[in-house]
């Protein structure tokens, strides 16, 4: 079943077009990766899906419902949750308070407690640091917190914007492992990455984004083997 579908989406910043006529879809249960260089429009795509940006043309459908004009905070309740680029945690709140903010739109308190346990199972480190201020944690921990916080809304679709940005290699591997784990637990994941190797290896399907449009599409393995993708993004060729 198609969970998310973008049809002919264009996004403008003022007069500058960041995304032109982009269409793709995400099936339920998948990990889908969007890879591309700086300025290709990856983050713009994410912000458009989460509702922080409004598209100038096209439509977005989520779980059979047109959400093109829906406000971002309502999309969260509908099941779209984002771990934003640069992590976007609340620096002056503790880990616990950050996670609590993640469940802000929810009223089912018992389910929230279960989700908190799930997040602590995925990221035991967060439990160790539960009283620490978000702003004083290391980059890797902040990323864990951002993903954990996004999971606290119990999303159908998890948007991850560059989870590997600025992290040490062992953390990158760990984060990607956890992404697969989250997916195995039944959450659909849309991933945006510059780290093409990991992103393609983990993805069921992937798209290559160049200056605001999709230039290649296929399964993760196909794109890993594609000579053009190899040369441009994997440093082989």
């Amino acid at each position: 079943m198609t969970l998310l579908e973008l049809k002919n989406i264009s996004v403008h910043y003022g007069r500058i077009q960041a995304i032109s006529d982009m269409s793709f879809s995400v099936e339920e249960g998948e990990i889908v990766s969007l890879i591309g260089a700086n300025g290709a429009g990856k983050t713009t795509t994410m912000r458009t899906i989460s509702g922080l940006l409004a598209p100038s043309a096209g439509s977005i459908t989520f779980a059979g419902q047109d959400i093109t004009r829906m406000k971002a905070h309502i999309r969260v309740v509908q099941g779209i949750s984002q771990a934003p680029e640069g992590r976007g945690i609340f620096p002056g709140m503790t880990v616990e308070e950050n996670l609590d903010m993640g469940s802000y739109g929810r009223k089912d308190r018992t389910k929230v407690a279960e989700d908190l346990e799930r997040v602590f199972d995925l990221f035991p480190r967060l439990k160790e640091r539960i009283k620490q201020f978000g702003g004083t944690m290391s980059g890797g921990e902040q990323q864990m917190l951002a993903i954990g916080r996004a999971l606290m809304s119990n999303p159908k679709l998890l948007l991850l914007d560059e989870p590997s940005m600025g992290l040490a290699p062992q953390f990158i591997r760990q984060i990607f492992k956890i992404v697969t784990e989250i997916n195995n637990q039944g959450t659909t994941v849309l991933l945006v990455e510059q780290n093409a190797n990991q992103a393609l290896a983990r993805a069921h399907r992937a798209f290559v984004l160049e200056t605001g449009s999709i230039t290649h599409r296929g399964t993760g393995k196909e794109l890993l083997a594609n000579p053009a993708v190899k040369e441009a993004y994997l440093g082989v060729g």
Partner: protein
Amino acid sequence: MSTTDGPTLIPDDASAQEIADREARMRRRKGWFPGLSDKWNALPRQTQWLILIVVVVIAYLLPILNPPLITTEPGNNWQIALAQMSVYALVAVGLNVVVGYAGLLDLGYVAFFALGSYTAAMFTSPDSPYVHIPYLWTLPLAMAVAMFFGVVLGVPTLRLRGDYLAIVTLGFGEIVRILATIIPAMKGQVGFQNVGHPPGTDSSGQTIFQNSNGTPWYWLTLTIIILVLLAAGNLERSRVGRAWIAIREDEDAAEIMGVPTFKYKVWAFAIGASVGGLSGALFAGQVGFVNNQKFDIATSILFVAAVVMGGTGNKVGAILGGALVAYIPLRFTAIAEFKYLIFGAALVVIMIFRPGGLLPARQSLLAYGRLAYNKLKGALGDIPASGKVVLEPGKGADK
């Protein structure tokens, strides 16, 4: 390997964490009153209430005590000075909701103060041709009028952020002042004399709330401040308060957590505006005269200075800042002419040595109160004395 900019190597994670922990602890210790709020929060609830009651009683007794050295006499009447200080403190409490809690820089707050003053004046002064109502009724009316205009200003402008919002609110402050000048009904510089006051006469038949007697006005305003503080405290701890903190920390992140950011920003604006209107009405009543000269931009900046000086986001700090801003030129009359110069210099000094203000807010405390604080203390106690934390990077993933 990837050709794009690869992962940045960070220092060994354990050592980075250790440094962060140490810095966090050091930050908590800094300040002029080291550990004051820590000590306060460690006290049992009954002791806190006892201290609070003593402070409140002293505050009520201030006009009678007229403490030497602190008093503004002989330069200025001490009771009237107290009345003005209390009005400024109330203004700061209101503006603190906007600037401190929600993080919206409002440079036109004086507009709401002016709206409150004019509401009180136009419905009570004999100079006004309109309907006259008892003075006390103008207090809620002033709040409603200011709140209405807060929403009117907020709905279009709160889509803007940061500097842009500051510029637009600055403009709004000027608009109200200029309208007061050019609209004939608002009487420009001539203004309104004999603004009303609460009813009541003492045993000798004298009016209690005279313009020349600051004490009853001070008591009235102080009572209102306490009520507003109780309300603000409840708001702080509510879902609304948490939403405001989240908006202040990162608006986009708050939105994608499911916080209706726009709605809560308008709420902050409206609530702040209503307190501004209330303090304006009290000011008009105490002074007894309203014209267009009192509501300039400098006053607006002074209000912001009061909040920043006291400690953005801390309501007790706001009271202190507001009272100080009014007090300094009244106490030190010799330097009153240079008050803006002195406030400017004081702000610079405070920002260097105490960037959080005189009584800085601990952000998490704002959001969750004592509970979070006690938990935090417990957690810090759990960290081994050496500061070393055992980390196992792979632990989470392999589960």
